[in-house]
């Protein structure tokens, strides 16, 4: 292990935890120009996926895309490591389409490790953090479990499910961060001692079975897209053999077995505490809550190319292993399935995210940042998204630069972090597109247009990559201008096309833009029918973007107007030391809520649940009174 010359005085940034959040945080800090240490329990387990072997999906995929636009690694690394790629929601509008990749887990880990190792200012160290070093309410470094101390100017904790982690299978309970790995309990105690308030959540994973022991003839094949798209705007197109997934369903027999053994389920025995996610119920829970459903889907996903493990999505459970086997085997196609790894639940501490600033810095402990599952989220994408923001801010702090945050109308990442710090969490937080009020603006296809200029400014996107985004944008601009002026004549070809997509024929020349605003009218066939040579001059991504921008233009304008209206509230800053408790005109409850979250702007204050418009008026009144005139 070669540490940099500066290491005797410590590092600029120390990141604890080599999971999805930690990797992005460490890469961002190092790339911005800080000497950064990634400290993690095992260098064999970098960016490990303890649950499903997939990245992306609706909502999550947009996060990954945004991470890529910001110069992060998750998108590129998924493109390097996927074994199946699929665009979801193609039957619905482009605003809600999202990519999902099945990855080879080991490949993903190895590729990420290679990227980390190649990063000049990034150092890796295997070790176990036992506490933080604090001097005058500011972080000074971390302590390892052997008592040694690593000084740092900023620390990012990204410890995932490890804080006082306990694994539960049936009646068994034992301390562990993930299966086969020790928990991180001293760190939990240490954080509590520093006044960080912790909560307790739980999450579970299904059993993995041997590919040789299942009968895929009884299942539906679920292949990848014939021409797969990439997560990263910067990835070169690759051709690769894709691996199929399979779909089967549980049946009454499966449910019968579960009902027979429910008394052994941790749900019933109470051996698991902590709140689990509603969107990821165990099969036990599904059978209890939806007794009328005669089947539940089970997606079978390969865990990689060099292993025979198959992940049984939909059969999450922490019943005793012998019951798991009965449940699995009651399901069509899995009658002789052999379990290779049993399913289990893990219970862990998380830090209440309302203690954080929008930069993910702990409000009362300067220079300590928290990212990932430790903030009460779940999922690789949610973790990575927080990682990159924490990494950027830790680095900017060291460089004496202004904080970096994203607004709700700029990015899903903005929605994610604002929700966390403003509303807090009462179950593990996962991204859904319905959480975003400006969903039509926050799309997969325009993530780079939204965020890459910022990433370039921050120093996370190099000139060459940024240049690609700029070229794409200017080509889009040209195309939109052209479509705004190009007149489509009422030729038979054009009218045939229009009628074929259920639109009315035209009798005089109309701009292409106007026609494209109609529902169901698409650019490529229209251009062809109208004899416009657009396909030759613009790449598919640009043509698609143009079409989307035009289709949604009316709604986009409306959303922009709404953003404009609210921007005043977002721009009124509440001073750090503002004493909410002293405003007697506010109700006691509102004073409490505001003091807990300590919002940074009036806009943020207005989103705290229970804070009324009247409270906001009174608050603005005070702030304006305080402002110098």
């Amino acid at each position, binding site marked *: 292990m070669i540490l940099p010359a500066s290491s005797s005085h410590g590092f600029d940034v120390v990141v604890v935890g080599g999971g999805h959040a930690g990797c992005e945080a460490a890469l961002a800090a190092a790339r911005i120009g800080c000497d950064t240490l990634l400290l993690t329990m095992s260098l064999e387990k970098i960016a490990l996926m303890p649950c499903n072997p997939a990245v992306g999906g609706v909502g999550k995929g947009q996060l990954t895309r945004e991470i890529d636009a910001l110069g992060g690694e998750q998108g590129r690394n998924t493109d390097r490591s996927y074994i199946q790629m699929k665009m979801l929601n193609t039957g*619905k509008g482009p605003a809600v389409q999202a990519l999902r990749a099945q990855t080879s887990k080991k490949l993903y880990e190895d590729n990420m490790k290679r990227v980390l190792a190649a990063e000049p200012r990034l150092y890796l160290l295997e070790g176990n953090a036992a506490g933080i070093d604090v001097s005058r309410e500011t972080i000074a470094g971390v302590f390892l479990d052997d008592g040694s101390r690593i000084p740092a100017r900023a620390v990012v904790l990204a410890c995932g499910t490890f804080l006082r982690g306990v694994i539960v299978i049936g009646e068994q309970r034992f301390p562990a961060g993930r299966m086969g790995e020790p928990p991180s309990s001293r760190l939990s105690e240490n954080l509590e001692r520093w006044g960080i308030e912790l909560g307790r959540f739980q999450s579970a994973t299904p059993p993995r079975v041997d590919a040789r022991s299942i009968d895929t003839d009884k299942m539906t094949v679920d292949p990848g897209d014939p021409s797969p798209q990439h997560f990263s705007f910067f990835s070169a197109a690759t051709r690769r053999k894709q691996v199929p997934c399979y779909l089967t369903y549980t049946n009454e027999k499966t449910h019968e077995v579960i009902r027979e053994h429910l008394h052994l389920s941790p749900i019933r025995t109470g051996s698991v505490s902590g709140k689990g996610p509603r969107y990821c119920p165990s099969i036990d829970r599904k059978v209890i809550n939806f007794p009328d459903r005669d089947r539940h889907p089970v997606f079978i996903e390969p865990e990689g190319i060099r292993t025979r493990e198959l992940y049984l999505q939909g059969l999450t459970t922490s019943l005793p292993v012998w019951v798991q086997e009965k449940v699995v085997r009651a399901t069509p196609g899995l009658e002789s399935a052999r379990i290779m790894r049993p399913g289990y639940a893990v219970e862990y501490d998380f830090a209440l995210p309302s203690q954080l600033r929008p930069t993910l810095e702990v409000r009362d402990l300067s220079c300590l940042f928290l990212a990932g599952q430790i903030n009460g989220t779940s999922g690789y994408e949610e973790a990575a998204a927080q990682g990159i923001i924490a990494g950027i801010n830790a680095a900017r702090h060291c460089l004496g630069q202004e904080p970096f945050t994203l607004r709700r109308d700029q990015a899903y990442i903005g929605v994610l972090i604002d929700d966390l710090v403003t509303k807090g969490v009462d179950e593990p937080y996962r991204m859904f*597109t319905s959480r975003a009020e400006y969903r039509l603006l926050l799309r997969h296809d325009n993530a780079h247009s939204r965020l890459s200029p910022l990433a370039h400014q921050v120093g996370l996107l190099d000139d060459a990559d940024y240049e690609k985004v700029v070229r794409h944008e200017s080509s889009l601009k040209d195309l939109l201008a052209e479509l705004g002026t190009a007149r489509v004549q009422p030729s038979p070809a054009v009218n045939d096309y229009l009628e074929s997509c259920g639109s009315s024929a035209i009798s005089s020349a109309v701009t292409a833009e106007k026609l494209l605003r109609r529902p169901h009218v698409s650019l490529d066939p229209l251009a062809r029918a109208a004899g416009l040579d657009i396909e030759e001059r613009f790449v598919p991504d640009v043509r698609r973007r143009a079409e989307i921008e035009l289709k949604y233009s009316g709604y986009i304008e409306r959303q922009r107007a709404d953003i404009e209206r609210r921007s005043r509230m977002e721009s009124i800053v509440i001073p750090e030391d503002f004493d909410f408790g002293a405003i007697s005109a506010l109700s006691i409850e509102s004073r409490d809520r505001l003091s807990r979250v300590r919002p940074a702007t009036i806009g943020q204050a207005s989103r705290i649940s229970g804070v009324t418009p*009247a409270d906001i008026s009174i608050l603005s009144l005070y702030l304006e009174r305080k402002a110098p005139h």
Partner: protein
Amino acid sequence: MRANETIAAISTPFGAGAIGIVRMTGPRALDICHRLFRPAGGGDLADAPSHTLHYGHIVDPATGESVDEVLVAVMRAPATYTREDIAEINCHGGPVAQRKILSLLLDEGAVLASPGEFTRRAFVNGRIDLVQAESVAQVVSARTEAGLRVAMAQLEGSLSREIAAVRRSLLGVLASLEAGIDFADEDIDDVDRDDAGKRLQEQAGRLRELIDSAFVGRVLSEGVRTAIVGKPNVGKSSLLNALLMRERAIVTEMPGTTRDTIEEIINIEGVPLRLIDTAGLRNSEDAAERAGIDRSRRAIREADLVLCLFDGSEREDDHDRALINTVPAERTIFVVNKSDLFRGRRPSFNLGLLPAEPVLVSALTRQGLSELKGLIAGRVLGGEIPAPASPVVTHERHKRLLEEALAAVERTLQGLRVGLGDEILAEEVRAAIVSLGEITGEEVVEDLLDTIFRQFCIGK
């Protein structure tokens, strides 16, 4: 600042049925109240301990008659919202009684509170400093919101229950759309568009009914906005005076809540008419009135009811004809004045020009006035105003939000017809739910997720 004055205002803009509050704060609040209040159980309000309720009557000192049966809340400084003495008079009678009580308080020396003044006092007394001028706007909106919350409670829940029901149904539609979007890779059927259309139609109907009820609500709380129009010298002000005199109506001068004009209320057989453009009426024979039709046009636009007046003793001219074409026949009562001049004979004015049968009156001799009053009351109460048994929208802001919600639901229905994508339909339904949430103070996302997880079995 009028820090030493005692201020009073009606703090709930509500109509018959609902309990209204007339509020007063300041050093003389309890004293003024004491002079008008006759407690049912005897005793003296001026000595009443803080935070006590007193049952009795408000009595008009001029006549000795009871104006309304009331509950008076006595709150003494400093443990009050304004940190001054407060008297809150909870009245049972409708808006007319509330206004009468307010006018009695003002007669006794209270000053009419300007919008936001209660909160401003609270603020000032909490912090001593002077309030900066530019802050007033915020205080006003704070007061409106606070009033809103009271309003919700006052509606005895029926309006909020109805809105909640509409919102719940819309949330159901949104949940089916959103579940299909956010859980694309799960076992969820696409939304049934026919069913969604039916549910949306139903909710649009309910929203329309609520919006229509706003008229009743406003009539109950503010009176029927009435314009008396006609060219100069047809006798508009005489008609007004005749209506006022005959009724010995309760006439209060009060600043309008939205516009700072002085408006008058006449009570016609229990129907409050609020006369608009009374300034124009009073100065009807002066030069300003020569602007004639133009000025009336505005009044006509704003009016719920138009009394369109002609001089029956003269032949019609171009002005009269223009006016007939301007007024909306369905909201207009045609009145032909000066019947004393053509008694028994045919009027010189050609009645055949009028789209509806006119009432012949003489403002001078009062002939035909009771017929006119009967017609006004019948017009307003008969058919045009439904009985307020169902929920009634009484607040302008609520009405606007309901209209926004309805517009969004209608856009969704239109979107269903032309086959727009689920994500756009969801956008519109969500906009409707957000508007309703601004009335009831609820957010979308958590309720939506709850609905999704209840309706659908989600879970990898």
